[in-house]
């Protein structure tokens, strides 16, 4: 009996872990989108969109390494947008 219970517990734990990882995957993807968009928002004048006053963008520029890297990586993969969607949908 106890063996059955421990096996059931193991299965439940595995499910729980799976759900947690799945949820975190989604949050991580959302986070990466938000970080890339944050850079795009600050330096959107580069692509012809309204941007904040240069005083703000330039003062933040020294600290924006991570966000700019994400933005550039995203723009590099823009031609493979279906792969990104497939990844998001876990296909």
């Amino acid at each position, binding site marked *: 009996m106890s063996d059955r219970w421990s096996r059931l517990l193991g299965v439940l734990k595995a499910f729980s872990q799976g759900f947690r990882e799945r949820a975190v995957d989604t*949050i*991580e993807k959302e986070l990466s989108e938000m970080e890339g968009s944050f850079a795009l928002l600050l330096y959107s004048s580069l692509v012809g969109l309204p941007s904040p006053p240069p005083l*703000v963008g*330039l003062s*933040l520029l020294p600290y924006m*390494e991570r966000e700019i890297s994400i933005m550039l990586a995203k723009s590099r993969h823009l031609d493979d947008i279906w792969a990104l969607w497939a990844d998001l949908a876990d296909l």
Partner: protein
Amino acid sequence: MRRVFFLLGKGGVGKTTSAASLALNLSRKGFSVFWASIDPAHNLWDVLGMEEEGGVKRVEGRLWAQEVDLEAYIRRFLGETTQRMKELYRHLQILNLEGMLDVLRYSPGMEESALLFALKEILEVHGDKDYLVIDTPPTGLTLKIFSLPFSILLWIDQLKKWRERILDRRAVVRSIKGEKALGEGVACEKGEDSIYRELERQEREAGVMAELLRDGDRVANILVMNQDRLSFMESQRIKVFLERMEIPIHLILLNKFGLVRGREGVEEGRVRETFSPVPVRVLPFVEGALGKEELLLLGRDWVEELV
């Protein structure tokens, strides 16, 4: 510091002459005065009939003056940014950051950003004087400088909210996947995040400027205009723009009065009616260059009201 005077108006209406008159009169009353021109096409020294010089120069007694070198401020502002980038992006040493300066210098909005930077510095460095007299560039650029702190505050408000959402999600990922999930040095708290801290710093600085511009006790905006129709119409636009930003006008100087006659001229009564309840003072047109004594005479009646 008792007060900051900004002289605003269309190009050529006599802002620098009125600023000279104000600065000289205040100085002769025994106050310490710093007079600065933030107009990129300034002629402060020309009005005084003095040799053009860089930096701060004593005009007489307790009156100091300076023509702000816009290019130098842009270079300094960009220089500080590139220096910080060099320190933080060590692996990008190969990148030609100096070359970036030439490109960034011509970015839209750089001029007003540098002038706001200059204005902040003038207020800090010369805050020990009794009065600051700031001669501004013609309308368009001045209104951009005045609206910049408010526009910065609006942007920062949104950027901070965006940043907070990023930090929240980072914290969730880290709490589930462990310390190393996001990589080293990636902040999850507002206090640790350099970007959030910089946004807060910018917000504080812009807030101080915005508050100052709206404070009628510490700042007096003097709108200089002429009788001609174009100057009158532009002054009306300045009034509307400043009202929208809740920045008060303290005094109207109807300068070069009597120069324009006939249908092109706007009657004094119409000016008073349009700008009521702001007081209007009339300064007669005087031909030729004015010496110090004439400049003093020009401000004799209205400067008294400002101190």
